[in-house]
């Protein structure tokens, strides 16, 4: 039974979040990640490209608490502008 379940689990596979590129439009990814995070369905496997890589790196290097702290428009605005 355990064997069967293990195989079923492997066949079901995992879920990955893929963030695309898109210059300043990639900022939408922050919102997407926040939406997923608040609902508790943020996948553990992230992939990012270009602007998505920035968001991916942001999420990938932070623990849940840090994401909750940093993922606000005010904090991001401070960091995105120069």
């Amino acid at each position, binding site marked *: 039974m355990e064997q069967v379940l293990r*195989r079923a*689990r492997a066949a079901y596979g995992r879920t990955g979040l*893929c963030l695309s590129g898109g210059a300043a439009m990639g900022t939408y990814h922050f919102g997407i*990640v926040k*939406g*997923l995070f*608040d609902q508790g369905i943020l996948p553990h496997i992230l992939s990012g*490209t270009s602007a998505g890589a920035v968001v991916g790196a942001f999420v990938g290097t932070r623990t849940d608490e840090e994401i909750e702290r940093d993922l606000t*428009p005010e904090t991001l605005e401070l960091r995105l502008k120069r």
Partner: protein
Amino acid sequence: MRGSEEREERSNDNGSPISLQKRTYSSSLRSSPSLRSSRILQSILTTLARRFAPRPLLARSFGKGWIDLLTNLYMQGTLFENEYWMQQIAWFAGGDMTFAEAYKKTGRILCITLSAVTKKAPPVLLNYVTAPNVTIGSAVCASAAVPGFVKAMRLRIKDENGKVHMQEENKDQLYFDGSIDQDIPTAGLAEMFNCQFFLAAQANPHIVPFLYNSKGDVGRPSRWSVGSREDSWRGGYLLAALELYLKYDMKAKFNFLGDLEAAVGFTGTLMTQNNWGTTTGGRAENQTTMVPQVAFQDYFKLISDPKLNDLYRYMRGGQIAAYEKTAFMKTHYSIAHTLNECLAKLTKDPSNVPAEAIHNRAVIRRKRSIGRPLPTPTILGSPQAAFTFSGVGGYKKIEENGEMDNGDNEVEAKYATPSLVKRTPSENNLMKGQRK
């Protein structure tokens, strides 16, 4: 006297066109004349910008004035400098954290796609397995290096002593924008981490307008003209047909140009790599795409720093796009988590329990204490199963030494018979219920 001098100079100039030509072809072209002309260019641009440019054009773009950018473009062939970007990105990428460190810290598997500069080289997927000691910041910068904006760049490596240095000189190891070759690396993720389902977020300005979903999408049902059905044609049959025809036609032409290598520069693969041109709008069987509702003004702000009110708009748009898929994803996860829970109960060896089952509980407990309302567990009956809802994707069974799934899982995935994947009747009902 003066007149004769001038005449002499003139005759000299006229008399030596060959030497002049030689000078232009020599390497000295790059140094002094270009410097001088760039200075002239800069002064002209400054005056022009002051006099004629409308206000928004003078606005600073990604922290730099337009004049700086154009000078940089003239001198180096790109709008931005690598070093500048590295500093900007540092906060987002956790300083000089490497992939392995990030994985150890957060347990999240981060992958970043890059394209190699050499032709015919396949796109690269960096993560803690393929590039454990590469700093994330440099990978992000390289991934954002769109030709013309930022130069292709070398990755940075952190050695055992914690010192960061460049990768060795080798032309093959320059990397640039990953979205040119491969925007959504489904194949790579499936191969490395056994990802069978992809939640894609699409915000590419050149693709977003075409993800129209003429028959509706997950979380975005189409009830055009037929109130009861959820997959009627948006905009009516004829208009939907016209939209599809134009889209397929355009896509065919892009494919043709791409295969002929007749497209300009890197644009050849830009429009052909994603399956945006289909009825389902980029939704393959194992993929659902989140597309934020972009505003028209976004296209004018593509290379500028977002203001605070823009950021609120971006966050809101993104969150709405994510909420559309929430129910769908929860159903998807519920099956995975149920399997995990069952496995955890059956397994006698506690070290063999899937880590995510434990992790989920921790997340839920934390969220409870914060006071955020939990998603109501209506789908599965038992309260214990409800726990599995909040979720963390994928089967995370990773030992401390940094190994991913032990090999037999991958093998099993390969040899698992299709019948194993089939859902039980109760799960089938569950899925149907969710769709309604």
